[in-house]
């Protein structure tokens, strides 16, 4: 396998992990976020600082990066998740930018806007594949668990689900925390892949891309989110030779999908059920 192919696969896995996190929050719990790149940044910077300055092994460092993102998500989520719908999306823009600006200006710790160089290239293919597999297995089980169903209930009707005894506030915050963990880990792996991180990599454009991929793949479909990630990542890589027109094609693909399939590639179905559908007996 050439280094280039390997790079693309690593990138696919990293983006896939982040997309699963955002998918849980946006597709399954119905909370739109435009600031999730900030959690990636938190994971990336925590892991970079721990491995480079404190010489911590990369594995606990990545997990700690994810956990810091979870902690921040908790403190952000408790007061802001009372906001519903678009209002949370607006708030999340502010939160995302705030974290990016802190990273940019906290020179003594993060080395500011020039970026953080010299991160160990710990993100090898086996490592990233292992992370991806473990997190994917966990996520696909989670969305069919009692908690996953509670998420969907809150998404479909917030009032009805709280009347049915769902602790909707808890479900929403937990969902944000889990998605922050996924993004934090993805950020940490990205740092190890590029050996260099910079606050500008985690700006609003990145956040928008994370949510766009999930909408593109289908809200409420985990496999759709992964498929969306694959398509978007591959398109940007495939058209690298015509670099300046790349974003044009990227935009066109998004528009075409939204026109032809407004519900996203997979709608709200999973790949497995889509394959099985023709063979399934009708529910009695």
């Amino acid at each position, binding site marked *: 396998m050439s280094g280039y192919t390997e790079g693309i696969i690593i990138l696919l896995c990293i983006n896939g992990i982040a997309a699963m996190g955002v998918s849980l929050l946006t597709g399954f719990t119905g909370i739109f976020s435009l600031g999730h790149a900030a959690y990636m940044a938190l994971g990336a910077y925590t892991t970079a600082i721990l491995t480079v300055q404190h010489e911590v092994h990369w594995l606990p460092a990545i997990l700690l990066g994810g956990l810091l993102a979870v902690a921040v998500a908790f403190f952000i989520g408790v007061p802001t998740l009372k906001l519903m719908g678009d209002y949370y999306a607006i708030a999340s823009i502010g939160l995302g930018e705030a974290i990016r600006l802190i990273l940019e200006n906290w020179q003594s710790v993060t080395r500011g806007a020039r970026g953080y160089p010299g991160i160990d290239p710990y993100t090898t293919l086996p490592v990233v594949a292992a992370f991806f597999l473990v997190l994917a297995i966990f996520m696909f089980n989670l969305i069919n668990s009692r908690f996953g169903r509670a998420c969907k209930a809150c998404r479909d009707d917030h*009032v*009805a689900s709280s009347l*049915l005894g769902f602790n909707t506030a808890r479900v929403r915050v937990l969902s944000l925390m889990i998605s922050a963990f996924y993004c934090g880990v993805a950020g940490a792996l990205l740092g190890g892949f590029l050996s260099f991180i910079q606050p500008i990599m985690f700006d609003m454009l990145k956040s928008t891309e994370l949510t766009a991929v999930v909408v593109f793949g289908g809200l409420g479909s985990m496999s759709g989110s992964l498929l969306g990630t694959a398509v978007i990542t591959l398109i940007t890589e495939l058209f690298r030779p015509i670099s300046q027109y790349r974003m044009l094609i990227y935009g066109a693909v998004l528009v075409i999908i939204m026109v032809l399939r407004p519900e996203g590639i997979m709608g709200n179905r999973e790949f497995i059920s889509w394959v099985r559908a023709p063979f399934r007996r009708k*529910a009695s």
Partner: protein
Amino acid sequence: MTTEREPLLEVKDLRVSYGAIRALSGVSLKVYEGEIVSVIGSNGAGKSTLMNAIMGMVRREAGEVRLSGSLLDSRSYRVVQQGVSLSPEGRKVFAPLTVLENLRMGAFPRGGQGSIGEDLEWVFTLFPRLKERIGQYAGTLSGGEQQMLAIGRALMSRPRVLLLDEPSLGLAPIIIKDIFKELRLINNEGVTILLVEQNARQALLLSDRGYVLQTGEMVMDGPSQELLANPEIKAAYLGAGGEKAIRSVKH
């Protein structure tokens, strides 16, 4: 109503505001075991707010709500576990789920304990229509069927008190009659019912006692028969006589 027995559901001096606007200014009511009690009132009187405040869906500013003597939690998911269940205004069924799935959702507060199968059978005997539609998506049901589903779902948590917010909303008169007949059956099964309605005649015909809510205050209460015969109620809510609203009535 001078009985000394303990009410099953008691609301005492409940106050709720939305920002600077007061929606309920000191509302009290009592519901005894086995009763059907209706709260009637016009648009904006605070009926839905009353229901939501009992359920903990809106913040109670002052006052208390008790279920057989013990305070109801201020968080809705706990209130359901304590034995009060609301079938909300506008039904709020899960449109992309089937009838069966919707009903199963109603059993969520018990965390899979108890006999869900038995309760399903119970709901199906009350609403045979739902059994016919068991595999159909809730969004494709008629308005009346959706209302039955919403009530059935609320019953799945085996509540001691069933609250109903405008069960007649948007339904044809003949369907409303059906729904109210079902409510009588549910009550005969031992479920205490508190109902708020704009359709005052139907509500009072069904219930044992009634309260009249007007701009956030209880202005009158009594046995439903008396309220039905009251000329001022007739004028204001039952469409007989002039346009005169109740102004000076206090109990």
